[in-house]
């Protein structure tokens, strides 16, 4: 006669979501599979050589200029109101797009001289050649003048309410 017996299932040693250990193991495995570990190891191994190469690159006239220019740009961007920065970016993009759309013929670009310059004002071909630049400038300035009302947050109805 089998007596009915109770049994309490012990606390589980598995989890529904990953544990830190699982994540770490997977992370390291992925770093390995994707070659990141190899790259990092190689880099670490050659650190003295790589550092001196980097410093050589930076410690000269153009390197120092680049660092200073980047810092200036960062400062400028940080101080600029976002709307203005967006307009500048838009302006540049649109200017470049306009320039790209109007393709001049490949031509020699020799200096025309004063007389030549007056003559050139009547030269259709030249105007065609200059068109991209002019269009770019116009687009840039239009973008810069655009009212913020036309930007995000303004649509039909928004002002009618």
């Amino acid at each position, binding site marked *: *006669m*089998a*007596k*009915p*017996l*109770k*049994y309490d*299932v012990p*606390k*589980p*040693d*598995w*989890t*529904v*979501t*990953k544990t830190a250990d699982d994540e770490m193991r997977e992370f390291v495995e992925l770093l390995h599979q994707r070659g990141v570990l190899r790259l990092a190891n190689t880099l670490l191994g050659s650190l003295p050589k790589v550092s001196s190469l980097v410093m050589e690159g930076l410690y000269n006239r153009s390197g120092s200029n680049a660092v200073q220019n980047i810092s200036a740009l960062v400062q400028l961007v940080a101080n600029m109101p*976002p*709307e203005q*920065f*967006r307009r500048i970016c838009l302006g540049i993009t649109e200017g470049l797009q306009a320039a790209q759309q109007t393709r001049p013929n490949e031509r020699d670009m020799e200096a025309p001289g004063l007389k030549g310059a007056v003559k050139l004002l009547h030269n259709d071909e030249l105007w065609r050649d200059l068109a991209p630049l002019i269009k770019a400038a116009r687009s840039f300035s239009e973008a810069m003048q655009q009212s913020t009302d036309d*930007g*995000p*947050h*303004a*649509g*039909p*109805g*928004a002002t*009618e*309410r």
Partner: protein
Amino acid sequence: MPAQKECTVYVDGEPITGPIGAPLIEILNSDVIRMPFICYHPSLGPLQTCDVCWVEVNGELARGCTLKMEEGLEVTLSNARSKAAQREGYDRIIAKHELYCTVCDNNNGDCEVHNRLFDMGIDTQRYPFQRKPYEIDASNPFYVYDPDQCILCGRCVEACQNVEVNETLTIDWNAEYPRVLWDGGRPAGESSCVSCGHCVTVCPCNALQEKSMIGMAGPFTTMPSDVKRPMIELVKEMEHTTGFTFINRLSEVDHALRESEIKRTKTVCTYCGVGCSFEIWTRDRHILKVQPVPDAPANGISTCIKGKFGWDFVNSPERLTQPLIRDGERFREASWDEAYSLIAQRLTEIREQHGTEAVAFVSSSKVSNEENYLIQKMARQIFRTNNIDNCTRYCQNPATEGLQRTVGYGADSGTIRDLEKAELLIIVGSNTADSHPVIASKIKAAKKLRNQKHIVADLRRHEMAARADIFLKPKPSTDLVWLNALARYMFDAGYADMEFIEKNVLRLEEFRQSLEPYTLEYAQQITGIPIETLKRAGDMIGTAGSVCAMWAMGVTQHETGSDTSTAISNLLLTTGNFGRPGTGGYPMRGHNNVQGADDFGAMNDIFPGYEDVTDERARKHWAKGWGVDDLPAEPGYTNHAMPAAAAEGKLKAMYIMGEDMALVDSNIQHVQQGLANLDFLVVQDIFFTRTAEFADVVLPAAPNLEKDGTFVNTERRIQRFHKVFEPIGDAKPDWVILTELASYFGYDWGYTHPSQIMDEVATLTPILAGVSYKRLEGWKSLHWPVGADGHDEPLLYTEGFHFDDGKARFHPVQWHPPQEQVDAEFDLHLNNGRLLEQFHETNLTGKVPGIVHEVPETFVEVSPELAEKRGLKDGSRVRLTSRRGSLQVRVVVTDRVQGNELYMSEHTRFNHPNILTSDHSDPAVDTPAYKDLAVKMEIISHDGPSPLPRHNFRYGKRTPVEGVEVEQKWQRPDYIRPPAGSPYPERF
């Protein structure tokens, strides 16, 4: 099926070909999204709420989602006017919905709001997003509604009103700030909502979302809300200047990250016999959500609370993870090798000492077809015994018997589509809305949308009865009488289909004679159903163009279960309702794989494919297939007979797989005595069940999410399910356990994947000859019988009946009252069965906190009349005593039951109604007569907490409407048709 006619339409001048009448939007979008949409859903149709699909037709703007393919139709999608209208529609959407996709748990590739932002190339917010004056509603245990994210597309309303047909959701379009309402304005968790999840499944964004998704879906969504909110604000601030472009790219990166983490696996529900299939979304072992899809063959986008939300049991800390061996007064953990060796040694000893008849096997409707096949193979091939059975015995065999007697196959005649198509459904003893909820939804929709008629016969006035055209309320155990009376009435009133009968049905005269006593007067006298009601029902049946009959445990779990099932089939034959679309007999299979357990031979008297063990040819065939000399010709013990045989000492050892028979067989004190009397018992299960308490060895098995396999649903539909997780701990799939154990008996089965088992079945079983995993890939399924060429039969009997002569048979049956009767002492009838939320003995659903929140304990339903007479109210505690035993339970007073009839759910591991049920059974198939039950009731305490919480859906008040009713929005004076701007885009 006749090929659909094709036509050509011109979209932006380009010819597009497709079937006439098909929705243009689906033809256009089947490849790349070309017609923008948000509210359109293939399973819901055009709701016309979102206003992003505008196109020009004949120079006029029209909502493109409403257009159907028709020859010569010309549509302009891409001119400035259409584009402006589409854009205006979308701008209104995001005025109501805050875009924070990267930290949103819905950014998983299926968010329509997010996707359209990309498809339509939108990069600026033209109307500002504004909050609504409503709080988030998180009161439902499974989902959350966020009014600030709701775009009022109405998909949820349409799904709730016309797909689930629970009629909880509406949108009040005339409110200042319209929103989705539960029961017209109750918290979701205190409404009539049945948590079926349809609304959540179809919501195109994160306005309705599964709680299991929240904070779990993406790498950035886990952030606490006090970090997330400021981040969202910061990003929104940036968007003033950056537009959506940058942040969209980021959310695409986020989406790509999620793709690598989120796994989607097709599976089939583990609960009822509807056989819903869906994708299950997981991250590690966490179940993010269950996502049904329109392609799912049985259910489409439908689920019930259990299929959608009832899966916490898989990760329950109570899962068994190690084999256990009884060791004196305790169980100790053991290795698989030790457990297998002990089983092999003890079963071999018992067989040698007492003969093969002393060992019995019990299989399960919860395990796969392949596993059912293997356990019967173990019994027959290794032990040479037919002592193998499964829990179909407890519920389904009478229905099988009734159909086998009359039409040949013991299974549903057609599919759920046929049930939907029928003009009339006769629903007997089936509480479909609770027990087969998705089928209930389909037929409720057929009734609501296409005026299908329903005659419902039941003791209880449950939802199907409340919605019925005619509700027949017979006295307990008398269904056979009114069924025979209606069959007689068909002949008397000239409704019988004599042409059909003469051509297709044998034994007419004998049948008509057997019906002699069953006049309507006699039926009224025995059943208590008024003659007029019977006549109305008879006229409705007699004049209907197509009739299906559905029945369930209310018919089968009686001494007369087989005969009543037979009477149903006789009635259908009388009216010629077999073999045509929208006709036939449909026993509702209870568990997910009840049908498969039988089909694959886990029964005491048949081989797989219903070949009789008494048939010598069949025995030879199977013996050859399994490489043995001969197989036993005598049917074995039924599982209902096994405990008695154990108690008498005839049965010495049992192997029980996935069945808690110490709770679910009738008269369980008797069953438990039998189990305790065994010399050796093996229990294989995923939890430590009540049956396991009696075991010598307990083996930890794996549920369907941890293995591959197939199930057969109530439609005879074979469907494939796929492994989502590895088995937990040391648990193993049942097919692996059986295969490994066979080798300890010297049988090298060698299966390494369940597909090999199916291949073996297919070679040996004619009705499954064409079944293979290849043919079941993706959402494909097969209805047996399946020919070797893969041809299956969704609708049976189109070419004759399943007898050698192709003819059906009337099978006369006579009513007799059950042995178990109410009397002066045991004066109440106790009916018992299911509730929607819980399942079986709660071994699975009892581990789901949200379900327990809805129905924490079982209860007994008492009628208002009886409650008044006995001074009972909700929460009173009573003792119910039958001729076998007694239990205590709390009371719920409800008009679902009448007079001296009580109802108690079977969903409990304590105080189970089987303490009260008897050993009486249907003599034809030995199914226990659970529902022939007389009790007496004593009051223990008048006051107490109600066992059914007030927040349960049964106390809600449904709000039926036709659907989304978008016309009400259009009629608002402040609704302006796009492309013109809207004054209140953030409101509606």
